[in-house]
Structure formats: structure tokens, C-alpha cells
């Protein structure tokens, strides 16, 4: 079984790696790149804890092979921080509205919300639910997550003014 050399830009940093074909993008990000923010919840594509942005679009990292990421641009939850490592606008809104408890689903929620807000800074409740409908959270009952996204959207609109 041959390994494959891949190049990918992860959180704006170019990476080169040699990967076994069967390695999932999730395991690659966590174990090879050392980005632990992307979480393993089910490894069969239901829970959404491993969501990342692939060329700006939210996908499940457990349902993609690392070798397929060759030539792609990937953003993980770590990539949503400001350049100085402080929480970005969306992350700060999640803190302010306490849109989490145990924090395990949180990176996936943030990724889904980021994708939503990138194209729509005035989402309706239905649009928010559609955006995070594939992210399971066991702690919160989602209400404070929705409020966090609404807060972030408000701040985004204010910042744009």
C-alpha cells in the first residue's frame, strides 16, 4: 500500500504530508497536524462534531479521506481565532451567550455557524436551524447555541455598518 504525498492549506498554513489512503481527514487533522479542536463523535457522519470548512464549505471530516484533501484549503475551529489567538467574533459570541456546556460539539457548531454567517448575516431562526441541523449537542438543548449565533449575526451587522 503506497502512501500519498499531499499538500493542503490548513488554517492558512501550507502543509505537506505523506498519508496512507485509508487515513480519514479527521484523524489526519488531529493526529498528524495536531489540531485537536476537531472532534471525533461518531465516525459515521451523523453527529457533526468533526465539521470543518473545505474550501469554505462545511463538511464532515470523518467522511473524507485525508488523501482527498490534496490541494484543498481547510479551516478548523482553531482557524476561527483572531491572528493573535484571541477568540474571533463568532467564538466570542458563543462565550457571551454561553452557547455550550461540555464543549465537545462546540467546534462543529462554530464551523456550521461560520459557514452560515459568511453568506448571510441576518439569518432567520429557520436558517440557523437548517445550518446546525446536522450537529448534535447533548448538553444545551440548542437554545443558547441559537442565541449565540443570533448575537454573532447582530455584531457582524453592526461591524459592517
Amino acid at each position: 500500500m503506497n502512501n500519498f504525498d499531499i499538500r493542503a492549506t490548513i488554517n492558512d498554513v501550507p502543509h505537506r504530508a505523506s498519508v496512507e489512503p485509508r487515513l480519514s481527514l479527521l484523524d489526519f487533522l488531529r493526529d498528524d497536524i495536531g489540531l485537536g479542536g476537531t472532534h471525533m463523535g461518531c465516525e459515521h457522519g451523523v453527529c457533526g462534531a468533526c465539521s470543518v470548512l473545505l474550501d469554505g464549505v462545511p463538511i464532515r471530516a470523518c467522511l473524507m479521506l485525508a488523501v482527498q484533501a490534496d490541494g484543498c484549503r481547510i479551516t478548523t475551529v482553531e482557524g476561527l481565532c483572531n491572528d493573535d489567538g484571541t477568540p474571533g467574533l463568532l467564538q466570542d459570541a458563543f462565550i457571551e451567550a454561553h452557547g455550550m456546556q461540555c464543549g465537545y460539539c462546540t467546534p462543529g457548531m462554530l464551523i456550521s455557524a461560520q459557514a452560515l454567517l459568511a453568506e448571510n448575516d441576518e439569518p432567520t431562526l429557520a436558517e440557523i436551524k437548517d445550518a446546525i441541523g446536522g450537529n448534535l449537542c447533548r448538553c444545551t438543548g440548542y437554545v443558547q447555541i441559537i442565541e449565540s449565533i443570533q448575537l454573532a449575526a447582530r455584531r457582524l451587522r453592526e461591524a459592517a455598518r
Partner: protein
Amino acid sequence: MKFEPARNLHYVAQKRRVREDLRFVTGGAKFVQDIALPGTQHAAVLPSPYPRARILSIDAAAAEALDGVQLVLTGAQLATDCNPIRLGLKLPEIRWYPLAVDMTRYVGEWVAIVVADDAYIAEDALDLIEVDYEPLEAVVDPEEAFAETERFVHPDHGSNVLYHGNFLWGPVEDDFAAADGSLGLRTRWGRSATVPIETFGVLASWNRGTEILDVWASIQMPNFVELLAATLGYPLNSIRLHQDVDVGGSYGVKRGIKQSVLAGYLSRRLGNPVRLIEDRLWNMAGGDAHGPDRIFDTEVAFNNDGVIRSIKIRALDDAGAYPGRAPFQLAKPISALVGPYRINSVKYEAISVCTNKTGQVPVRGFGQAPTNYMIEMAVDAVARHLGLDRLEVRRRNLIQSHEFPYQIPPGSEYDSGDYQTVLQKGLDLAGYDQLLARRDKARAAGRLAGIGIATNLEPGGGNNIFEYLMDPGAEITTFMEGCEVRVDPQGNITGIMGTTTSGQGHETMFATILGEELGVDPDDIRIVHGDSLSALPTRSPIASRMAIMLGSAAAGAAGKIKDRALAIAAHNLDREVEDLEYSSGTISDRNDPSRKMTWEEICFIAYRAYHKLPDGMEPGFQAQFIYQVPGGGKLPDDDGRVGIYPCFSFQAHIPYVEIDPGTGRVSVLDYAIAHDCGTVINPDIVRGMVIGGLAHGIGAALYEKFCYDDEGQFLSATFADYLMPSVHEIPDVRDVEHCTPSPLTSHGQKGSGEGGYLGAPAAIASAVNDALAPLGVTIHELPMRMHDLEALINEANSK
């Protein structure tokens, strides 16, 4: 200890950010899977495909020969080197090992474990292990298991019954005879659980030089280290459990004993760190996954005005193959066995049986949610029987605010409450009159619409004395929690807690109370988690207890810090302590405020100036406090009455649902909840747990079930088959607080982590039955899945 009533609060009960959140949003949290040690080996487990089978042979030669494989271990080998895992009850003929020995007892039971250089190779090796099984007929149905005389899950035990006890508190037969009427009801709570999004994981590393086993585990469990040490046969102080691991949800289930025994054993044997991260399939079938699975037969005696006099309960619980602490989930609900109602007497028959299913572990509320569901269904049945309004029946039975503290027949003393007011707040929030109009309008349009009402208690604080009710040898009368507070030479304050946290915001709660008591901004206080060799005793965040127990311990430790500062200042200012006043670290003379000592001066003296310390005072600046469960410490009286939990929170749930008659699908369209957990330490945390628990309860009510077929094959190992609610299934919950402080705790706080879950299943069931009422049918089995409801509706319509 006695606490003063809450004073003007600066930090407690204020909207403040939750300090844990920063690491979670930035990807900086440290879950078990994020902890890396050099040389770590990876474990994978081989699950049994059969519910009950004899293991004739295991051939692991090919697996062991695979490049990168370090070891394959089977149960037979392991059993010679470790002890069986201690069970809650004394059942010496039930021997529970981390791997099956000679026989498998449920689908998913771990038969062998592989350790390899990476997780992929470990799973390759699993493919190469050949097990020769002789399948046997399984014990599946709990009623049949109870009656079974030959086919036993544990043949040496000679029965499938783990526990069978009868309790009588008060004049039940007299009360039944004197009542105007009575009715019987069977309710069934389906096999569901908490299913955290993080599976269980453990990393263990044996150090030959120090002879210490370091363990990082995603646990939430009292006695974890004791059980681990006992199973491995190590002295307790040779295990160091690191409590600074973030736990990705637990809500009771993350026990991790067998997993940690395996990792610890293998690490010592191999001389490398060993990591066992459950995958979802291993977790759902063979991990700490399943919760109560219970049949209740209830008889209620009542008067024609709806006043309930007495209740007889028979509970049959299916514990699965290995009981662990499962039978005790029948005992804890004794703490609130009559709910929030004035019921004069109770008879309780509790039966725990084993079957060839995954073993039951503690789930949020430790048996209270099924019990509350049963009580609420019984109250609704009484109302239905008498043609009375469900609300009115509750109002007539709820304990009145002037009756507290109120002792229920089994002995628990409800500390405080104002149930009528909280219920009214819930109704106001729901807009109950408009809700009735909405329901009736929907019905007029041909839809099935219903309103649910449930009022329920959340016992909080924990106290193991319920074990004694089942096992009179278990004279355990404390369930303490300790903490330490250190002030460093710079004057910074650090609080040290002794347990992991799994989303409840304990660090924020601890810092808030320390800040409040010491007059310091909580954001300036550091909170750390000590390990099991360095921290004070803990009983972990179970039983809605941390605000009560750690919170009060924090207040106690802060008090000791202040006392020490006052003593140093009094000595150096030449005043009596009584003359001095503490304010945000500065100590001054009440009569002459210019005469004072600063915090920096006190810290300097404590660490550097022994000659300025009062005679006999040790240098340094720290305080320890270990808090005993308030009201605990006693054994049951001669009538078998005992106070179990100290604090009782209360919720009123009012959901609105509609059922699609064509498909049976239930939509929860509205949900109002009013809750009273005494003083709220952090409003966002409490609100989150209330709503999150409620959502978990909606799952238990409508979607979640670990299904087995008649042969004992397990059908719900994936997230596509075990259905947790997504955002689409949860309505826009509205909540309102009420505060009846507990007289027992430092700031009047009670528990809040379970209440939403303890009432929502009952409330949704009440709403569904209200929606079905025009058809003249009821459903008393959870989850109420759409195919069951559709069949019920179809049958009613066909008549």
C-alpha cells in the same frame, strides 16, 4: 456548619461569562483524546456478536503476528491477573471482568483487546482473531428473566434476580381502605441513556521508576480510583487520576472502570502508555451506555375530590448483563418517591433482574426520571378517572409553601419550596389560557393537539445512604466534597477542586463563590483540578450536587482564609478579631478605619515573617474544607425512614404538542418551564442545564431507545438508529426562574443539572395523552415512537 442568609451579592446570581468557555471555542480544551504521551500504544476491542454464547476457543496467533501489534489479551488471561470489578450489591457469584471469560452475556461484550502501534493496525488485528462460539438461547424479556428457573445470565448466581425488596412506609392498607377509590396503571420506561457526544476514553501510563499508574480518563464517577485499585490489586496510592481532563459530556454514565482496568493493566504489562478510545460502536453496545429499562405497576388510592391518599408501586428494572450500580437506581428515587405531593403512605416493591443485554449504568437522576414519569402518569390517570382537571388535581395535592421542611413517608425532608407559585409562573409563561385556545382551535380543525403538565422534584446533594436500604451492611453516612484554597505570596488566590468537570461549569461556580466570600473578582481567581493523590476527597459531580457540596465547601474554605487573615491582622494591629472587619482583602479596625492591614502585608507575613505570626500559627496561607452532606450522617430509623438527599429543586413543565394522525409523528411546538433551584450561582449555566436536560427528556420521551430483537440481538449501535434530538426536534423553550433558597447551603443554592430531564418525559407524555384524549386512548410507554402512536390512532379511528 450553619451559613448566614445570603447577603448583598456581587458575583453570585449575576450574569457573568463562564470561564470554561474560552478553551472550548478556541479548540484549546484538553479532552482525553488530546493528551499525547511519547510511545503511546493504541487499544482496540473485539465485541461479541452473540447475546449469549459459550467461548470455546480464541485463536489470536495471526493477530499477534501482524506487524505493529504488541499484544492480544483475552478474558481468560486477564482473569488470572486481576480481580472481578466490585459490584454495588454483594453478589459474589456474579463475576464481572473487563473481558468476557468463558461466556459472552450480551451483544457487544468485549471478548479480546488488541494493543498496537496505531488505531488502524489495532483494528486490522481484530479482523484476524478467530473466536469459536457456541451460541445459547438468550434471556431477553425482563418479566421472563424474573420468573426464569433454569436459564440464567449468570449460572453460578442461580437466579436472574439481582435484588428484590419490599418497603412499607405508613398505613398503606388503611389509607387504601379509607379512600373513595383507587386505580391501577402500568407504565414502561424504555431503555435509553445519556449518550454523550464524546465516547469514553482513557490513557494510562505505568511508571516503573515511581511505581505509579497515571490515568487520564473521561470519567464522572465517585470511587473510580478505589475501584480501579481494587480490581488491579494495587494500593490506592499507586494510582494517580488526573482530574484536569475535559469530559465531553457524561450526565452520569461515564464510569470507565473496565476500560481503565484494561488500559492500566496493559500499560504495566507492556511498559508503554496505553490509550483506549471507544469508537461509537464499541461505546453503544459495550461501553457505559445503557440506562434504566423499567416496568412500573402502580396503584393509587384517592378521594373523589382528587386528593391522593396512598400509592403502591412495583418497579421491575432490567439491569442487563452486569449490574454495576444499576440496582441502586431503584433506591435513590426513594428520596422523592411521592414527588411534590402530600401522599400519606407508600408501598414500594423493587426488583432488579439481569438479562442478556448491555449492562445498565447510572443516568442523569439515577432512576428519578422513570419514577417521576410514573408518578405524573398516575396523577393524570386520577384526574382522567374522576373527570377533574389535571391542573386542579395537582394543586390539591402539592405540598404547600408553609409546610416546609416537609418529611415524606420514606423519611426524606424536603428542605424548602413554593410549588404552587412556581407552577403558576410556568402557566403564566406558557400563556395557559391562550394555549388552551390554541389547542382547542387545532382540535376543531381536525388536528391532534395536547398540552402537557408535569410538576416534579429534583433531589440534589447526593448521599449514599440509599445503599443501606438495599444492603444493610453498607453503613455509608457521608458523601463529602472537599476543596482547598491557597493564597500565594503575591496574594493571588487559587482554588483546588478534586474532580473532573463535564460541562457543568464547576470552575466558574467555584470561583464565583470564592470571589463572593472573599470580595475578589472571580476572574482574578484561578481554579485548578488536583489529581487523586494531591486533592482532597471528592465524590464527583453526580447527583446534582456540586453547587450544593463544592459550593458550600468553597464558602467554608473562604471563611477559613478570612479567619486566618483576621488572626494575623489582629495580632499585628494589636486588636481583637471582633474589632476588625474584612473587606476585599483589607482588614481594618471598625472603629478606626485608618488602622488597617492590606492583603499584601498579610500575605508577606504569612509567607516571610514568622515573627509576626500569632503564636502557634503555621506559616503559609491556605485552607482546606471538607463538607459533609447537610442533614446526612444518620442511619435509617426503626421504621426504615431516612433522609436521603438534602435539597429538593422543583420544576413545572408545560409543553404543547401536535401529532400528525397520518404518520404518528409528534411535533413539540412550544415548551414553558418554571424552575426553582434556590439561589442561582451563574444564571447562564443553570438556564443551559435546565433547557439541555429538558431536551434530553424530549429525546427519552419520543425518540431514544436501545432496541433489541426477540433473540437479544442489539439493533441500535449507530447514531442513525439511536435517535438523539437535533435542533429541529427541540422547540423554542421559554424558561422562568423562581428562588426559594435552601436553608441548608452556603448561599441557598440547590441542584440544577437534572431537573429538566426529570420532568420533560412526563410532561411530553402528558401532552401526547392529552392530544389523544378525543380518541379515547392513552399511551404509557416511552419512548412514544411514531409507529406506536400511528397504530394507536389508527386503531381508535377504525372503531
